[in-house]
């Protein structure tokens, strides 16, 4: 069964009057960011999205999450076209986006509060999800008192506490050190294995993309479209050691090959703009 379906999704940003950028040497106030994305994601699938910087990955997540409208085309979550944030979709950001004036517990409760979940149940759920991420005992800490890895655990716990059908993750581990990143990847896979929610995960790390995914979607340079989809047929559950296998190396090489030209193109794009 399909969970997310993107049909010819396009997005063009129009800058405010007077603002222009130079695209290919031509000044313009219209930036085409997505030029026709078609993609179908199955229920319970783990898809990673890779592509050069500026290829519209974040914008695409925003469209799926109902935070930005597509200029044309349609994004479906389930059977309904997305028009605004859907309660069954959750979002995790690179910068954690925890509210610094709320404790870990209260941050998770926020997602439940705005859904009108009664207080006792909120409490219980928030505690359960903190425990799930190994954060028992940290309920009353403010984000400023938690490490980056713990903050991102809280943010993921907050996203999952609402039992989302779709989890959108925009470079969630990019700000973390390598060890913490490895650990969190493992935790995410372990939890996903239990709840089997549909995950769309943006990353710049090819290793991460291959390690986590059922399929890696590679985007072209801006304006972005789907360049190629690479099936990751590695067995699950996967442990870290799998990265040292030949099969993993082959897939990594394959993704890099597809990505390389696009990264070069994107770099050329910036050089033109810089002149």
């Amino acid at each position, binding site marked *: 069964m399909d969970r997310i379906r993107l049909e010819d999704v396009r997005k063009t940003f129009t800058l405010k009057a007077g603002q222009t950028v130079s695209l290919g040497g031509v000044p313009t106030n219209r930036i085409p960011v997505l030029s026709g994305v078609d993609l179908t994601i199955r229920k319970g699938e783990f898809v990673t999205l890779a592509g050069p*910087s500026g290829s519209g990955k974040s914008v695409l997540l925003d469209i799926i999450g109902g*935070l930005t409208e597509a200029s044309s085309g349609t994004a479906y979550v389930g059977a309904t076209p997305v028009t605004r944030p859907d309660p069954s979709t959750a979002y995790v950001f690179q910068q954690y986006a925890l*509210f610094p004036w*709320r404790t870990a517990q209260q941050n998770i409760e926020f997602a439940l509060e*705005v859904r009108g979940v009664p207080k006792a149940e909120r409490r219980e759920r928030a505690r359960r999800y903190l425990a799930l991420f190994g954060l028992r005992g940290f309920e009353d800490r403010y*984000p400023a008192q938690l490490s980056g890895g713990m903050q991102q655990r809280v943010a993921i716990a907050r996203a999952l506490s*609402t039992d989302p059908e779709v989890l959108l993750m925009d470079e969630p581990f990019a700000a973390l050190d390598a060890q913490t990143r490895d650990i969190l990847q493992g935790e995410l896979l372990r939890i996903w294995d239990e709840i089997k929610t549909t995950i769309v995960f943006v990353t710049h790390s090819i290793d991460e993309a291959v390690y986590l995914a059922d399929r890696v979607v590679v985007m072209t340079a801006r304006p972005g479209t789907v360049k190629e989809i690479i099936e990751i047929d590695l067995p699950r559950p996967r442990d870290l050691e799998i990265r040292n296998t030949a099969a993993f190396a082959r897939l990594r090489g394959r993704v890099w090959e597809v990505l390389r030209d696009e990264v070069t193109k994107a770099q050329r794009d910036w050089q033109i703009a810089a002149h």
Partner: protein
Amino acid sequence: MSVTSENRTHDAAAFSLWRHRFAFPIRMGSGLATILKGVPLLVVFFAFWEAAPRLGLLNPIFFPPLSVVVEAWLEMIRTGVLGRNIGISLQRATLGFALAVAVALPLGVLMGRYARFEQLTDLMVQTLRNTSQFALLPVFIMLLGIGEASKVAICFYASVFFLLVNTISGVKSVDPLFLKAARSMGASDLDIFVKVILPASIPSIAAGARLAVKASIVAVIGAEMLAAQSGLGYLIHQSQLMMETPDMYAGILTLTFIGLAVNYLLVALEARATAWRGQAEGAPH
């Protein structure tokens, strides 16, 4: 494009977080040691105050020795004159401040959040803000009479703009990522106002409130000196007219103490309201 706007947003977010943390670079900790270092100069000052009139360096009619002032002060406490007038002044200042909060918070949130609304109102606000509250005292008296209302009005006027300006800037500097996160969780506009924008603006609003309280106290004293039959300002002014200079200085010293106490209180409250920002911060200044 040399910089994607995504990156720019992240930088802006990081910057605004950074700013939140360090917007008020006040430190506690070393507070007591710092205060102790300042004590000798204060002692010298008081000693000079005591000695100079006695030695004939200053005219004791205009500058009575400190001990005489303290005596007058104790007497005013004993008779209850001081307490009564402090109460009256603080009541006026507090009422004016409370009204200012009631007006400035909603108005500031609207002005900070809706650019259209701000464009409509900003010039008006700037015009009013740059009109001295004391210049307006005659207007308040004509409109509201010589009684309490005109004093409360001047306190309101003196404090409202500090609150308003800081509420607006607090609301404007809310990290857009917080808003995005809240929206992604399905928060309604009202939820976003109450649970995101307002708490995120608390550090800025609290700093404005501190200035506003001080301004309110200054305003009430000024107003009482110019036109009142009671209050600490009236007491000081009246003592001067009657050449009861010990009483006058006692009143002035009282004001100083009130100023110090209020400042400590406000700093402590502010530190509490913003404890989530990390380490305890705040020291009088």
